[in-house]
């Protein structure tokens, strides 16, 4: 009974599925599926470019790519965006090992040095870069320096993105924290920062400031390391084989953080990344501490806010945690000189569009723009441009850098201290024992 109609519908279903599959195969032909299977590379005039830029950065990067494309019609730019962190760096490494690397890729400078050590990046020769203006004198010296590994240049910096201090102008004004010209008063001491947060808390009725803690190890690390660097400390030395954590300095910083958050409740002790931006944009907190990239979020929410350099709380030589985006050339034995020049032209075009890029809050590494009046007018993004040469990158090691387990180990312990779940001393011994495992492991790079 009814078997005919059953088998008929099943057959139709299979037929439909087959058509869909075939359709996929045909459209796949155009997008490199077949070329990939056959081992044939993309056409010669294609420039493949990988990056990890999402959100507002992603939108601005696409605008920059489009401008490049319009100006260079003979080149077909093929940009691939992958989600940042492990998914990106893993694919970049494996594509390079598999001899199918992109022509040019974005890398954090802290990660570029690891890739360079692994022999996955091509060294860049000053002589071939000079015709494109890609010389040391045109870049933020601190970033240019970090772009070198073992004395060789491997990356072209695009920007520097430090930890910065966001503040709500409405809250700061009511709390009496603005001077006569409307700028934030100097908060360069533990007492001044504590007092400002206390005053802001009175105004908001909730919290003085906010920083992401839950399910986030990078942000706690950024705040801790900035304060710790201001005391002159380092965590790793000798390429990560030695742990040089200064217990007294670390304890001083951790105690200060715990005091502000868990003890005084000036900042919430339990809030995740999204929650932190929401609390700031809705006015439940007057200050917010994060990398410069959240500028787009608060411009979108139309919050009355401004940004400034993270204060020099401990008053030593100014230091602030940062990383940089940079362009790298993954190793490709088949790459010709003509191809390299095409890539350098592309990089130069991106740098020439630094005015677009800087809208995302990052301090452009390209000095011709960084020192221009146009950048000065870009507020609040240019307020903290002075820190570009005082930033500290993670101490070099095969296990450090943005998205690394070094930052996870440190950040998790710092977050536990901030939330009042762990004493500073316990956190320090926790950090030491976990880092020791890495310091004693032979580098896989």
């Amino acid at each position, binding site marked *: 009974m009814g078997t005919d109609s059953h088998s008929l519908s099943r057959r139709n279903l299979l037929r439909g599925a087959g058509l869909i599959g075939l359709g996929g195969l045909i459209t796949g032909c155009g997008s490199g599926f077949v070329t990939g299977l056959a081992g044939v590379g993309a056409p010669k005039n294609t420039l493949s470019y990988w990056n990890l830029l999402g959100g507002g950065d992603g939108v601005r990067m696409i605008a920059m790519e489009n401008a490049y494309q319009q100006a260079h019609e003979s080149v077909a730019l093929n940009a691939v965006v992958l989600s940042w962190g492990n998914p990106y760096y893993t694919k970049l490494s494996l594509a390079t090992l598999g001899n199918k690397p992109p022509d040019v890729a974005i890398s954090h400078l802290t990660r570029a040095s690891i890739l360079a050590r692994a022999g996955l990046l091509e060294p860049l020769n000053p002589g071939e870069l000079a015709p494109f203006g890609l010389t040391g004198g045109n870049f933020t010296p601190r970033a240019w320096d970090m772009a070198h590994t073992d004395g060789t240049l491997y990356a072209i910096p695009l920007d520097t993105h430090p930890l910065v201090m966001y503040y709500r102008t409405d809250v700061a004004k009511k709390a009496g924290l603005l001077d006569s010209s409307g700028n934030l008063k100097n908060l360069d001491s533990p007492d001044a920062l504590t007092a400002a947060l206390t005053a802001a808390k009175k105004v908001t009725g909730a919290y003085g400031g906010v920083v992401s803690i839950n399910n986030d190890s990078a942000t706690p690390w950024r705040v801790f390391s900035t304060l710790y660097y201001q005391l002159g400390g380092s965590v790793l030395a000798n390429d990560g084989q030695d742990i040089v954590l200064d217990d007294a300095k670390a304890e001083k910083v951790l105690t200060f953080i715990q005091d502000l958050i868990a003890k005084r409740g000036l900042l*919430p002790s*339990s809030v995740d990344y999204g929650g932190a931006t929401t609390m700031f944009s809705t006015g439940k907190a007057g200050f917010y501490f994060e990398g410069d990239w959240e500028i787009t979020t608060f411009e979108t929410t139309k919050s009355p806010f401004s940004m400034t350099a993270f204060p020099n709380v401990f008053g030593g030589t100014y230091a602030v945690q940062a990383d940089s985006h940079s362009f790298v050339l993954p190793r490709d034995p088949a790459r010709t000189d003509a191809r390299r020049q095409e890539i350098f032209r592309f990089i130069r075009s991106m740098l020439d569009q630094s005015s677009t890029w800087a809208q995302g809050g990052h301090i452009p590494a390209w000095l011709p723009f960084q020192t221009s009046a146009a950048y000065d007018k870009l507020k609040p993004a240019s307020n903290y441009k002075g820190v570009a040469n005082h930033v500290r990158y993670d101490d070099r090691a095969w296990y450090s850098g943005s998205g690394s387990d070094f930052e996870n180990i440190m950040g*998790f312990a710092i977050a536990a201290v901030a939330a009042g*779940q762990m004493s500073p001393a316990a956190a320090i011994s926790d950090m030491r024992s976990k880092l020791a495992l890495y310091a004693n492991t032979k580098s896989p*790079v």
Partner: protein
Amino acid sequence: MSTQAIPTAAGARTAVAVAPAKRRDEGRAGWGLAAPFLLFYLLFLIGPTLYGVIMSFFNSSLQHSGLGGFAGANNYSQALTSSDFWSAMWHTVLFTLLTTPPLVVIALVLAIFTDRLARGRWFFRLVFFAPYVVPSAAMALVWTWLYTPQIGLWDKWLSAVGITSPPNWLADPNWAMVSVALATVWWTLGFNFVLYLAGLQEIPRSLYEAASVDGATRWQQMRRITIPLLRRTTGLVLVLQIIASLKIFDQIFLMTSGGPNYSTRPLLEYVYDIGFTDFRTGYAAAASMLYFLVILAVSLVWFFASRSQRKGA
């Protein structure tokens, strides 16, 4: 199972006439039909697994091609003496212990309840199964919002019933695992529920009629008929659930990243961290082989238990 069922159903008319040669042809056709799958199975499961076994004896790195230097049993001894490995193993076991009993018991209770309904059964089947089709990423996002301190719905609901200082769900090391387990129970209950519901519908109604004629109460019927006849379903549900729980990665990775301060990091995330974040793929392979042994042990226990059960029945 299904390969047996299809020829007997389709070939009922010709079954008598089937010659040995024809049967051989059918066997060949069967292999032919299975070949594409077998090829993929070999290429993407057996092959990589064997490669993983080999890799676990080498210092393989994500940053270098090839296997790297021979490490002997170093990777294994390092994993077995690493406190991080054992704490991750414990978190995986803890998650399994927290999720398996409720996922079996609640699924059974809900299935019995739904089975008893005279009408509207489809509605409850849909309601209880629906969360299961939600992708892990969406589920993690929704539950993270529910658990958000102060502004999350859980805290709102709890304060409405007088609990004004609720636990700090995902951020308290003592509560984080419980919170993830709770979300998981809601999320995956539907699968066990459907298995139980199918098992219940297999039980002949006449048994219950006979029992009630003999004066058995509802409770006695449940204890003497329903539960014993569901024994094989329970065995299946239990082993599938234990294996599913041991595979925990998605929810924890998305909701806590293994935190606060590594207090929820399961073994699979440990493998992910050392393999992808630290580039040490050889060591990661050794850790996953040890974990594979645990899953294998669980499966073997079920295999022998169900075999003796079948012999007994």
